[in-house]
């Protein structure tokens, strides 16, 4: 087989970089680049997949959802302004606070991180686009459809009304479609979130500019990496929980019903294993914005780069050991609570370090106070207050007193406003000139800041006291003789002051006639995004630079001129294809030219049918849902087949500066392989959550396993495990045979793999056919494991069929086997799933 390795000169020398580019050559290059990257106009605009369009839509949609959720909050504050007001009835109030929390978390805070990262990351990294633009587009459309569906339910008085953490049995027994809308609509969005996380992680690891070694990345990318990883491990437990929850709602499998061996506490574990990392998933990206703004304000590099990195990584880890502090009052043994109390206090340290790094950077720099810095400073003031009440709440006995009161409401809003909203606003003011080439108004910005900051404190500071005076959260009314009246009235006034601030901000955002940018780097920042010209071109960067500093614009004086001149890499688009450079993970050595996908409608269609598959079951339309799901799979297969891992027209390409890079990559060199790896980590986490369920019930319930229970048929389980293991071996064999040039045998191996997989899946299904999962949680959890594994068998077979078609129709050959590598990787994970499932359902019940 042909060797595919970069060849030529690298790194570029100063003489090479100093050599001028002929103006007519540059003009021709610009013409071609512009044609390739041009954003379509008219209806075709909506088929865009470029990160700047997707990122813009994504951010604006998040902002719109935030405003809706904010209006719900205002309406609630009216109801609570004084005792005895009958503005909202209990049920509507319950729908409103459920939707306020759900929308702020799932439709604003997490997606906004992804939106801003999609928008900014390529610019920070001098890349032209994200590695998988169509995946970004797919994620966005899923988010939009799911968000409108979930939020729209409030207009039909059909919204979920059990609180945003959806505790069973209240939420499992809730009448009407509210709970289903929450479960299915938000699961749909969570899947899109995970897709975006996968893309962002791969973007940070593989799409950096040549020379940007791992210790030189902008801090923002470190945070993206950490938060992407956290999403990957935090969201899957919730998705697994959603699956079990929906199985209970739809099929009456008693996972959370104590009368049949279930336990409502299990949901709380799954929810908070997601929910607490979620808080840091929201918080860290906003701190990342601060980490970009603070050095600019101080006009010097961040002091303690490695401190920030370690804090981000440390917080990421520790945040997974805190979840039970949301369950301090559930009556768990004191010693169990105490471990979580301790871990919750430990996370204070990495969080605090980040704040002190900012302080130290400002101390050694020459501070020029700008509007973004005002928002950052306000954010830190609010966040430190929220952090300090967090230190209090982590002390379990104190939490017993104030848990589920307005004290906690105040605390969580202090952390989210200070740790998210205010830094994000700083980011909007800071990056607005980069996105739009215009400036927001300084005067209106100060008005907005002081109204939001002042209103916030007016609203939420009194709530600490309201909570200590005994007011529980989530009450639609309260008696007038408990000393809460004036405090609530002040909070209501404060809420409207916040709203006035956001109104001014929105007006400023939307008003026409803002002044155009005078120079491309208005804040005199040091990072690559400010190389974008004041005209703003769709191509992102004119040429992809060679970077030797953390702050190239400060330390590499020629870089802007050379980028503009097309002196660096990929200054041209001779083949009329959208391209970006893939570099190695640690040292960012160029390894490949990645042809990224262009505008397409298929992603929108795929998202719409995926939406149908999730949304239709809400109305018990299971048949149409299956049809929609099949069409969605068809759309995705079409999209993959026509635009990913195609055999390129030539194996190598000259990228400039005497460097030639391969145009195709397979296995660990390919971004698709990394994406599969990362996705499967998340998938394995969801599976582990269900396995955790099995052992949770064993620990928590005396009647698990129930005496005389029916078990999965051991012989069939063993048969299924053996057949699926052989299917894995056949898939791996097919990849090896193809590499060895024996395509005929590879086709045979894939077919054998498919037959074995289908047989194994069937045996697995038969092994539990005799169980009655609605009768007790034991058969229910066994069947849930089988459903999970069976669904993965089905996906595995589709993948094998895809490879079969690839081998037959020449998409896969000896030199172009990326698809086979990715599918084999899927099967590596899958065979582990199968073996664990077999052990848990076939062996464990006979040992416990």
């Amino acid at each position, binding site marked *: 087989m042909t060797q595919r390795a970069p060849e030529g000169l690298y790194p570029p020398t100063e003489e090479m970089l100093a050599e001028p580019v002929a103006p007519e050559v540059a003009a021709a290059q610009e013409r071609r680049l512009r044609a390739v990257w041009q954003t379509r106009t008219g209806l075709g605009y909506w088929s865009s997949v470029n990160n700047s369009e997707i990122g813009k839509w994504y951010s604006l949609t998040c902002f719109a959802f935030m405003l809706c959720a904010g209006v719900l909050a205002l309406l609630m504050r009216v109801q609570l302004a004084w005792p005895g007001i009958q503005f909202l009835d*209990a*049920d509507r109030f*319950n729908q409103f606070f459920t939707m306020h929390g759900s929308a702020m978390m799932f439709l604003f805070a997490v997606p906004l991180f992804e939106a801003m990262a999609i928008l900014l990351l390529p610019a920070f990294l001098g890349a032209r686009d994200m590695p998988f633009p169509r995946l970004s587009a797919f994620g966005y459309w899923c988010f939009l459809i799911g968000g409108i569906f979930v939020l729209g339910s409030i207009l039909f008085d059909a919204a979920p009304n*059990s609180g945003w953490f959806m*505790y069973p*049995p209240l939420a499992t*027994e809730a009448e009407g479609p509210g709970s289903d809308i929450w479960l299915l609509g938000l699961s749909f969005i969570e899947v899109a979130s995970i897709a975006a996380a996968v893309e962002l992680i791969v973007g940070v690891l593989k799409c950096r500019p040549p020379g940007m070694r791992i210790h030189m990345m902008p801090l923002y990318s470190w945070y993206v990496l950490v938060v992407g990883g956290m999403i990957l491990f935090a969201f899957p437990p919730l998705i697994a929980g959603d699956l079990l929850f929906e199985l209970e709602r739809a099929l009456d499998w008693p996972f959370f019903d*104590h*009368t049949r061996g*279930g*336990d*409502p*506490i299990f949901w709380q574990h799954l929810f908070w294993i997601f929910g607490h990392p979620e808080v840091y998933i929201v918080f860290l990206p906003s701190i990342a914005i601060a980490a970009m703004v603070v050095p600019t304000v101080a006009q010097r590099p961040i*002091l*303690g780069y490695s*401190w920030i990195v370690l804090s981000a990584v440390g917080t990421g880890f520790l945040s997974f050991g805190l979840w039970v502090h949301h369950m301090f*009052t559930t*009556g768990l043994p*004191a010693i169990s609570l105490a471990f979580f109390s301790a871990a919750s*206090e430990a996370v*204070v*340290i990495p969080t*605090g*370090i980040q*704040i*002190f*790094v900012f*302080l*130290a*950077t400002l*101390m*050694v*720099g*020459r*501070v020029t*106070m700008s509007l973004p810095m005002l928002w950052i*400073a306000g954010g*830190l003031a609010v966040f*430190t*207050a929220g952090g*300090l009440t967090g*230190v*209090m709440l982590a*002390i379990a*006995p*104190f939490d*017993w*007193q*104030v848990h*589920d009161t307005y004290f906690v409401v105040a605390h969580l809003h202090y952390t989210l406003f200070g740790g998210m909203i205010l830094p994000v606003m700083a980011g909007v003011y800071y990056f607005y000139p980069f996105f739009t080439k215009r400036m927001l108004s300084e005067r209106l910005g100060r008005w907005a800041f002081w109204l939001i900051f002042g209103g916030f404190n007016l609203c939420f500071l009194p709530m600490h*006291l309201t909570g*200590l*005076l*005994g007011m529980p959260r989530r*009450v639609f009314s309260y008696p007038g*003789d*408990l*000393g809460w009246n*004036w*405090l609530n009235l002040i909070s209501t006034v404060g809420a409207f002051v916040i709203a006035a601030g956001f109104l001014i901000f929105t007006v400023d955002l939307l008003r026409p006639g803002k002044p155009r940018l005078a120079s491309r780097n208005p804040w005199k920042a040091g990072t690559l995004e400010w190389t974008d010209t004041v005209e703003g071109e769709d191509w992102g960067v004119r040429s992809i630079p060679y970077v030797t500093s953390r702050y190239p614009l400060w330390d590499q004086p020629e870089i802007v001129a050379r980028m503009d001149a097309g002196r660096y890499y990929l200054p041209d688009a001779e083949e009329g294809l959208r391209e970006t450079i893939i570099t190695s993970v640690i040292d960012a050595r160029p390894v490949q030219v990645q042809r990224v996908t262009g505008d397409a409608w298929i992603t929108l269609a795929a998202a719409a049918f995926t939406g149908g598959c999730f949304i239709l079951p809400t109305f018990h339309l299971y048949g149409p849902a299956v049809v929609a799901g099949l069409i969605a799979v068809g759309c995705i297969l079409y999209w993959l087949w026509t635009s990913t891992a195609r055999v390129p027209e030539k194996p190598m390409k000259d990228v400039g500066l005497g460097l030639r890079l391969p145009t195709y990559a397979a296995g660990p060199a390919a971004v698709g392989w990394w994406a599969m790896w990362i996705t499967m980590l998340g998938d394995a986490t969801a599976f582990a959550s269900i396995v955790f369920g099995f052992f949770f019930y064993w620990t928590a319930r005396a009647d698990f396993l129930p005496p005389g229970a029916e078990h999965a048929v051991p012989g069939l389980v063993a048969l299924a495990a053996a057949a699926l293991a052989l299917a894995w071996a056949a898939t791996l064999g097919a990849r090896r045979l193809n590499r060895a040039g024996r395509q005929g045998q590879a086709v045979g191996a894939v077919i054998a793999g498919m037959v074995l997989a289908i047989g194994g899946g069937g045996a697995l299904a038969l092994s539990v056919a005799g169980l009655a999962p609605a009768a007790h949680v034991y058969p229910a959890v066994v069947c849930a494991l089988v459903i999970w594994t069976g669904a993965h068998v089905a996906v595995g077979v589709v993948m094998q069929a895809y490879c079969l078609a690839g081998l037959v129709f020449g998409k896969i050959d000896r030199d172009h086997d990326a698809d086979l590598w990715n599918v084999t990787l899927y099967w590596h994970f899958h065979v582990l799933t199968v073996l664990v499932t077999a052990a848990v359902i076939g062996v464990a019940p006979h040992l416990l």
Partner: protein
Amino acid sequence: MAILAGCSGRQSALAPAGEDAAQLKLLFIVMLSGAAVLWLGLNGLFWYVTRHRPGAMPVARANAVIVGGGVVLPTVLVGALLAWGLSIMPAQRAPGEGLTLRVTAEEWWWRVEYWPEGATAPIVAANEIRLPTGTRTELRLNANRFIHSFWVPALGGKMDMIPGRETVLTLRPDTPGGYRGQCAEFCGPSHALMAFEAVILAPGDFDAWLAAEARPARPPETPEEIRGAEVFRDEGCGACHAIRGTAHAGLVGPDLTHLGARGSVGAGTLPMGAQALQDWIAHAGAIKPGVAMPSYDWIAAADLSALATYLESLK
């Protein structure tokens, strides 16, 4: 003024009437003082650096700020606080010393059983708990259908009530008086209206009250009360409610044997009184969303009044 009214409020964690709540108040005051100092120090530094721009400081001093402020200071302070917090957990969960209450959360009210030491049958009440001072009482908490949470801020922390799991809370009140407890875990439409009175009595008073509570209901005496008892019977109230000493032994709703002696109607929703009882019987659904009790709005005014008078007489 609002603050003063509140701190002495009946449902305030800052006006403790028991050992546990007092300990937690002390913990809070100490934490609040520390937090205020730290917040002012940190934000004062930020203010100084960004507003007064003292000019570039040496890098070594700034690095010392990171190590000292970011690592050493929080490790020591938070570690000390954690140790204190952990050390009071066993006291907060000390075992009871005799009397046990079994409280079951229903939708949306409280079933209460008193089990004095050695008792073989409980003394049943509802929507009000009474505890003696000077001794630690154990509360065994259960829930019927949804998750609720038992919380009397003046006495101590809260404890969730979870279907299928019994949780245990112990409290040691020390100041006699009337306090208020409320459900603290969202539990559906009438979560806001699920409260109860918590009456703390000196030990002698408590024993006397418990002896009275154990007795059957006072029979109706005046013609009005007698008529009320007839309405109670005719409307089938006994299918759901029990009045000890009569034939009514329903278990679905709250026990009414000593209803008139309680402080509130509808689980802390209305203050006890004949008018409140009338409103409740005729319009329970409007007063308390989702309540299981039907609204008896067809009962004639005179009968309704008699029924309320009878119920109020059940002291």
